[in-house]
């Protein structure tokens, strides 16, 4: 039985007087590939921010790798590819190697420079996402799909056990989305737990091992096949508007 690496218990979160999350009980087991779906404004990004420690829950508790989030210091155990990775300043003069090296900043700690072993690790992470030919290119010169791979390499270089990806395929073409999911499966086989936030329900039910549907509160957490077998009407109730799930299946 795999252990829980994330546990949220009775979590509420408010932005001022507006409630974003209500009574969330949720866990992630080691080795899972979780697809987090839900409508815009349903609290997906808020949930991610809570897990990353960028926001604190108004009520309830969160534990990561068996430790309460307040005490959790091993930030390198969690890799993160944000929505904003798609909107970084493309004119920024940083090579692929320099961007991936950023992923080691926290693990190294203050006042420590990168060693030869670190540089080797950076090269390995770039090779893992198949981008070694571009190591010395400026990141702004790459395509959207290639940039996304580099941000995944940055998240992977610190050997995370949990990789969180927030809408990583926005702006990436269909061919590269397929390659991207193949890469995720390879990582999952290496026992990296994945939490992927997406709007694309069809793709998610096809790839994830568990689907979580969130709209302020948790509406579904279970097998993607069960989610797929639900009627459009049932899922539309979670979303609060009409949906057509068939159209996005791959």
């Amino acid at each position, binding site marked *: 039985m795999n252990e829980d690496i994330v546990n949220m218990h009775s979590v509420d979160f408010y932005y001022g007087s507006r409630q974003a999350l209500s009574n969330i009980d949720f866990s992630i087991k080691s080795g899972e590939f979780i697809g987090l779906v839900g409508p815009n404004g349903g609290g997906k990004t808020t949930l991610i921010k809570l897990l990353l420690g960028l926001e604190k829950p108004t009520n309830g508790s969160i534990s990561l790798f068996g430790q309460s989030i307040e005490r959790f210091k091993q930030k390198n155990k969690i890799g993160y590819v944000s929505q904003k990775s798609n909107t970084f300043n493309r004119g920024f003069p940083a090579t692929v190697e320099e961007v991936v090296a*950023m992923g080691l900043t926290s693990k190294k700690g203050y006042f420590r420079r990168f060693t030869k072993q670190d540089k080797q690790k950076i090269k390995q992470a770039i090779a893992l996402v198949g981008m070694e030919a571009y190591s010395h290119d*400026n990141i702004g010169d790459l395509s959207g799909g290639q940039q996304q791979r580099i941000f995944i390499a940055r998240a992977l270089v610190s050997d995370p056990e949990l990789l969180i990806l927030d809408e990583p395929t926005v702006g990436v073409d269909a061919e590269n989305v397929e390659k991207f999911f193949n890469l995720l499966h390879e990582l999952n086989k290496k026992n990296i737990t994945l939490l992927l936030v997406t709007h694309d329900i069809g793709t998610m039910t096809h790839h994830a091992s568990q689907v979580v549907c969130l709209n302020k509160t948790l509406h579904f957490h279970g097998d993607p096949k069960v989610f797929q077998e639900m009627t459009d009407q049932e899922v539309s109730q979670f979303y609060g508007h009409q949906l057509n799930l068939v159209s996005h299946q791959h």
Partner: protein
Amino acid sequence: MLANLLEFEFLRNTFLTGIIIGIIAPLLGAFIVVRRLSLIADALSHVTLAGIAFGLLMEKKTGILWITPFYSGLGFSVIGAILIERLRRVYTAFQELAIPIILSGGVGLSVIFISIANGFNTDLYNYLFGSVSAVSRNDLFSIIVIAIIVCAVIFLFYKELFLLSFDEEHAEVTGIHAKRIHFIFILLTALVIAASIRIVGVLLVSALMTLPVAASIRIAKGFKQTIIYAIIFGEVAVILGLISGYYLEIPPGGTIVVLLIFLLIATIIGKKITQSLLNRKHQSHGEVLK
């Protein structure tokens, strides 16, 4: 100039200061430019002017000599940096507002101090546009100390500063104390501006921090290369600007900045020519394959 350089201490001081600020201004400027904070240097330089005017006023009215314009400028610059940070937190949605507030505040204070003193002699002119004869031995020692602090802090916090510049959210996620590091960074900017003002002047100091980087960014691959090229451009402009300023009897601030503009234009044209040559090569290669 070489013979005079050996003969006159003030020229040696100026030359050494020029070489030092030719390194530290573009070094810090690289982070300023990529963080899109170029105007912060302008705001702080105007606050420094208020500090300098305050120091000159003290000298003139009270005869207090231990508050030299250099140290009062440095003090005001650091206070301005702290205020900018405070204002950026107050106006989180309009952080750029901090810059015009501090800039106009600096100019306003300068006008008041200058008026109270009933104007100053040419010394103020030197502070506005720089001078080849304005660096004392004490100033030089202070500038060396500032340079050591700036280089040491950037060496120690390079990876954190780089990450913060590229992706502030990611920096916070990985547990980096973004606010503290940013505060240190703004303080360094204040120090570098205070150190550079003697040579390039209040009105042109931000140019020495941003123009070499603007030129470098056109041709560099990666951030480290951007810093190296920016320092080379900065040094070339400072050394040639000081020499030409000395012989032409023009404030070096002007000659340094004009040289930097020439370098910037040269890199822009050079990059375009290289790009079009590369495109032609690719086109002809394509035709051969056909």
